[in-house]
């Protein structure tokens, strides 16, 4: 059923009895051309693009819980393409372009809202690093503006300019960046993939890989039985190491907890996304009115999906450093996601060393904003057996070759990326 104000009004007349499931609830078939493990944004987008762009419709997406129950439902909803290194720059811009047409592509309002992101700088060195990054963006056809303190004051008059520990000297602005409604992205892809024939199978946990005599992966064992597959794609960020271990693979990935916070709903206070350069704090305001904010990783390996106090305090201290007007706004909820932290802070999208098994992992902080492009390039890899041109550098062997994509320059120390 096509969604529109007309279908909505029509349905209202019949007391909304006419709506049907947004996606089917099929029993798994015995075999698919492609099985995607992971019913998050990336897995569902991959299935959608396999069907839409590459004509592969005999596809199943297997989800151990409910779709969107991983990091797709546990992030701060920011979309942006303000990256500085080859590999990331083009890829995230591809994603940005897909965000910009997502609602019409999917016939689903994912509330993509391009209200802009400002990364504040507080020192000459930070300004120079942002200038380098902004110029890279511009050279790659991405919008970027470098603002000085006076220009920032015009955009964000409410920041703390008077008694800051680290004065605001300016910021890097990407106006096309913004936020999207994270859950809606999952549901929109699920519905659109479903409409193109993809089977979305919830409560179906993968427990092992089926291998043939040559070691090739030919299917998966699941809590709902064995499912054969021409190819298996993993899109299980947060659990990448655990799933890869079933195939005997060790990855250059650690799992870390990243906390995020939301305040009570208040009337509009903040226009876009603001990132504090001298502390660990970034914030935006959801359409519903909550301030959505976060900061750094807790810093230790964790699968617990919850964090501890030091980081929560650290984040709020950062908030009160630049926006002391939020002192009386109350934090409503705190949560933690499992971050698939790769060793250079950039993702891995590649064939695995095992035939028939394909990796989509290591998303670090970039997972949500990457969703559409990740789906497209992973679908390309699965369909064509060669990397998409915008994902050619996200190779697994780059660590062995020394070709890291290390935006923050922190080296093989995931909790610092």
């Amino acid at each position, binding site marked *: 059923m096509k*969604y*529109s*104000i007309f279908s909505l009004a029509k349905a*209202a007349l019949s007391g*909304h009895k006419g*709506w049907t*499931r947004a996606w089917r609830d099929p029993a798994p078939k015995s075999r698919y051309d492609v099985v995607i493990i992971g019913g998050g944004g990336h897995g569902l987008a991959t299935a959608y693009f396999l069907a839409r762009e590459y004509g592969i419709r005999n596809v199943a997406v297997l989800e151990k*819980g409910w779709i*969107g129950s991983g990091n797709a439902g546990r992030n701060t909803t920011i979309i942006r393409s303000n990256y500085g290194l080859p590999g990331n*720059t083009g890829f995230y811009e591809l994603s940005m372009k897909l965000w910009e*047409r997502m*609602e*019409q592509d999917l016939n689903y*309002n994912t*509330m993509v809202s391009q209200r802009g992101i400002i990364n504040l700088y*507080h020192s000459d*060195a930070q300004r*120079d*690093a*942002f*200038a380098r990054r902004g*110029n890279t963006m*511009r*050279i790659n056809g991405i919008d970027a503006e*470098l603002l000085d303190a006076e220009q920032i004051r015009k955009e964000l008059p*409410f920041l703390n300019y008077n*008694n800051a*520990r*680290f004065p605001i000297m300016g910021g890097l602005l990407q106006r096309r960046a913004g936020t999207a*409604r994270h859950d809606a992205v999952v549901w929109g892809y699920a519905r659109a993939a479903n409409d193109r024939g993809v089977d979305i199978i*919830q409560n179906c946990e993968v427990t092992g890989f089926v291998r043939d005599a040559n070691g090739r992966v030919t299917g998966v064992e699941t809590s709902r039985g064995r499912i054969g597959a021409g190819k298996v794609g993993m899109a299980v960020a947060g659990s990448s190491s655990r799933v890869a271990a079933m195939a005997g693979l060790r990855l250059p990935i650690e799992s870390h907890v990243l906390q995020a916070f939301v305040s009570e*709903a*208040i*009337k509009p206070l903040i226009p876009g996304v603001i990132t504090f350069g001298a502390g660990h704090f970034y914030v935006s*305001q959801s359409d519903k009115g909550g301030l959505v904010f976060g900061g750094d990783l807790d810093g230790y390996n964790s699968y*617990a999906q*919850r964090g*501890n*106090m030091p980081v929560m*305090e650290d984040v*709020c*201290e950062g*908030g*009160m*450093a630049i926006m002391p*007007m*939020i*002192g*009386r706004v*109350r*934090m*409503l*909820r*705190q*949560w933690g996601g499992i971050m698939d932290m790769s060793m250079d802070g950039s993702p891995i999208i590649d064939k695995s060393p095992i035939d028939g098994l394909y990796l989509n992992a290591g998303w670090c902080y970039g997972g949500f904003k990457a969703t559409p492009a990740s789906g497209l390039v992973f679908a390309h890899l699965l369909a064509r057996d060669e990397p998409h041109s915008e994902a050619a550098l996200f190779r697994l062997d780059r660590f062995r070759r*020394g*070709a*890291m994509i290390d935006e923050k320059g*922190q*080296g093989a120390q995931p909790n610092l990326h």
Partner: protein
Amino acid sequence: MSGYSRSEPLARTAREEANIRTAVTSASQSHRLPGDGMIDRRSPLRFSFDGKAMTGFVGDTLASALVANGVKLVARSFKYHRPRGIVTAGSEEPSALVEMRTGARREPNTRATTQELYDGLIANSQNRWPSLRHDLMSINQLFAPIFVAGFYYKTFMWPAKFWESIYEPMIRRAAGLGKSAELPDPDHYDKAWAHCDVLVVGGGPAGLSAALAAGRAGSRVILVEEDTLLGGRLLSDGGEIDGMDAREWLRSTTRELVSLPNVRIMTRTALFGVYDGGTYAALERVSDNVAMPDRHQVRQRLWRIVARRSVVTAGAIERPIVFPGNDRPGVMMASAVRTYVNRFAALPGKRLALFTNNDDGWRTAETIQRAGAHIVAVIDPRREVPAQHRRLVDTYDLRVLAGVVSDVKGGVDGVRSIVVTNNRNGQTQRIEADCLAVSGGWNPNVGLSCFHRGKPIWREDIAAFVPGGAPEGMATAGAANGELSLGACLRDGHSAGAKAAAECGAAGKPGEASKADEEGYGIAPLWHVKGKGKAFVDFQHDVTASDVTLAQREGFESVEHLKRYTTLGMATDQGKTSNINGLAIMAEATGRTIPETGTTIYRPPYAPVAIGAFAGHHREENFHAWRLTPSHHWAAKQGAVFVDTGLWKRAQWYPRAGEKDWLESVSREVLAVRNGVGFCDVSTLGKVDVRGADAGVFLDRVYINAFSSLAVGKARYGLMLREDGIVMDDGTTSRLAEDHYFLTTTTAKAGPVMQHLEFCRQILFPDLDVQLTSATDQWAQFSIAGPNTRKLLQALVDPSEDLTNEGFPFMGVREVKLRGGVIARLFRISFSGEMAFEISVPARYGAAMAENLMIAGKPYGVTPYGTEALGVMRIEKGHVAGPELNGTTTADDLGLGKMMSKKKDFIGRVMAGREALVAPNRQVVVGVKPTDKARRLRSGAHVVPRGEIPGPKTDQGYVTSVCFSPVLDQWIGLGLVERGRERIGEIVRIHDPLRSEDYEAEICSPVFYDPEGVRQRG
């Protein structure tokens, strides 16, 4: 120093002030009962709500005062802007949210039920326009047929560009509840630590019993209670304990607890989080009960309580029943009605009806009758009146109807009548009433016990979830544990307190548990009365029963999908009154049981907490600690401009009268050094004492070059890599004795390098005899540079010291005696490229050293210089620093590849050899200078081959560091450029679209100044 203004008056409007002043004591309190409750009738308080002056008493909450004043309408709901009243009497309140205070202290979304009344309190309703009674946004109710769950996902998509420009701003303005202050919060917050053996959460009967048992046993106890008073439900329901009146028991128990030195009672303190290792978070509302905190007092304090054991006695929350019209002002929880009547002597209505499906709800009928008010009907879907309440029915001749409330009629002022549907024949009847008390049963407060992903367990007999999988060290007791009678609460609390104390090793006797009735609790689960009108599940987010079933039809069957699709339970009350009803309706729709359907994940905070409280002292200028150099105050006196470098405050330049900008000052400082002599405080460099028999071997392993071969009395530049082969840091290390090196790091990396060195020492090379001590703060260190350096120093040191090239060669190091007797360390090293020394004295002499350098250098025009001049000179000399050591460059990229020893293993050696790190097309450090000498070069500009169009394929590097070189009289810079060293002399395009600049520059050697290094050896 608090740093926050204490003088800011409450920005009240004059009219509101006047209104409050003239309010006639208690005349407005039409619904105040004659009894005393727990309020102090001798202490009247004036307050205003929506500009209307009213009165209350000490002991009131804002909600109870509003009830006493007969106010029913207090809020508008989130989506439909429906009129809403007060539903509960506690922190679970979903509806009665108000905007407290004004101006910078304006505070949205405060629950009227937890706000203590104080004299001069100003509260306003929110989310309405122009007024609460006449809210134009209530037009949304007309669109309610369209505004169902998830409607926005299905529309607002065309045309695409309308989203940001029209639809979204509209939605954003409509959404949100209150308005936050838009001025810095003038109040102060702090954070504190507390430690105990047993933490008791909740001061009701179970909590008091637990604290008493644990306290008597001798363990260290902290009891936290969110309310202003201890007692919990005893304050509302009374009862008899150990043969005495519950309030008498409360007094004597409190007395005993207070007398125990090992028990600490914290009221107004709400526990909101449970973290790992027995760390609990609580918020103390220190000054929320006054108009403005006292001078030097905080508004709120965040407690981090470390407890070996905890006993959670957080009680239970009464749940509503979902039926049409259940959100009308005047529909109130039955237990809340008891609280308002018994504790606050305030009557929520004059004609009250009671709708209950359980025995406990019946107690409200008794309360109302005893208060002298009239109960018009008791509606219970069960066939029989519970045995324990039969006498009640007889005594008061109660009208009991076996049925359900199927509709509520009324207007903005609330309930006017209710419609009751008879269970047996389905016939309806209308009953006039102005208040409907509702009880759907009790939900034990399982939140805190589930914060570590514990799954609550369904108990059929009480039709509720009880705790399951509580965090390590936590026990639950009392109503929070599903014990719903007073006697069981006392018993359960006592035994949990005694057990926790024993587990902490307390040897004392916990004494006997207090006793009270353990009457039964019968309930016939009733979640949803189907009917025509809107039946609300989540009052604040306007989620109705039909929204839940719609979500189910569309496939959002998981409770988490339900929550996210309908926003059920995502409001400020976190679904305390709505979640269980929502999932019960979902269970019914899907044909699953309630436990099969399961709950959503419980997350902290238990109740919302002000962001300011998490920051405490660390806000604005106190965000991070600051570090001062030994000559800081001296430099400030000279008028230095300071810059933040990490945590350090450093002198950036020293402006002089008449200089038009920083560039003029900096250029003067540079030329003063190049032509005469200058000095700069470089104490911020990390300094490490490396000692031990194997110190040299140790340094050989952490640096790419050799240090064991360094002669005593000499210094050497060293470079260290990370294990992945990328440069970590650089600095000069001196050998002061056979077994003593003095290592320096960059300012930025002092901490990480120290940690790395300790890692190498303790983990990688534990066999080496080496000890490390940070000496950064011990020494005031100054760089003295320029051709007259030696002359200056000669005047400063004892005449016996030989500073000639022979007596003190380049890279020499030794202790010298200064005139006046102080011993200093002198290092002949140069960052500026000039004849230079660095001199260290103990930090206490830092200011004196600066003074004395000025005196000794006076004949030579000595000039203090700041970090900017330091930077200019290092760029002129082509020395790499932070912008080049950016965590992605190799030693060879920096032009230092030859330093890498081939004879030894060292950290990073192997990985530095990987193919992509030794590829010929890497970007390496070069010099860059614009071909037009008048051009300003900027860092972050990119390098593109001349004649090429800038693009991903032609982007060959960027400018890392720039300065105006007063010596060369032009802007110069360093850059990282692909194959740069092969391209010296090439003209390239400098592309800087961010700053709309595009010009040409020559790639050159990074050493712009004195490439042979004659001057520094001079």
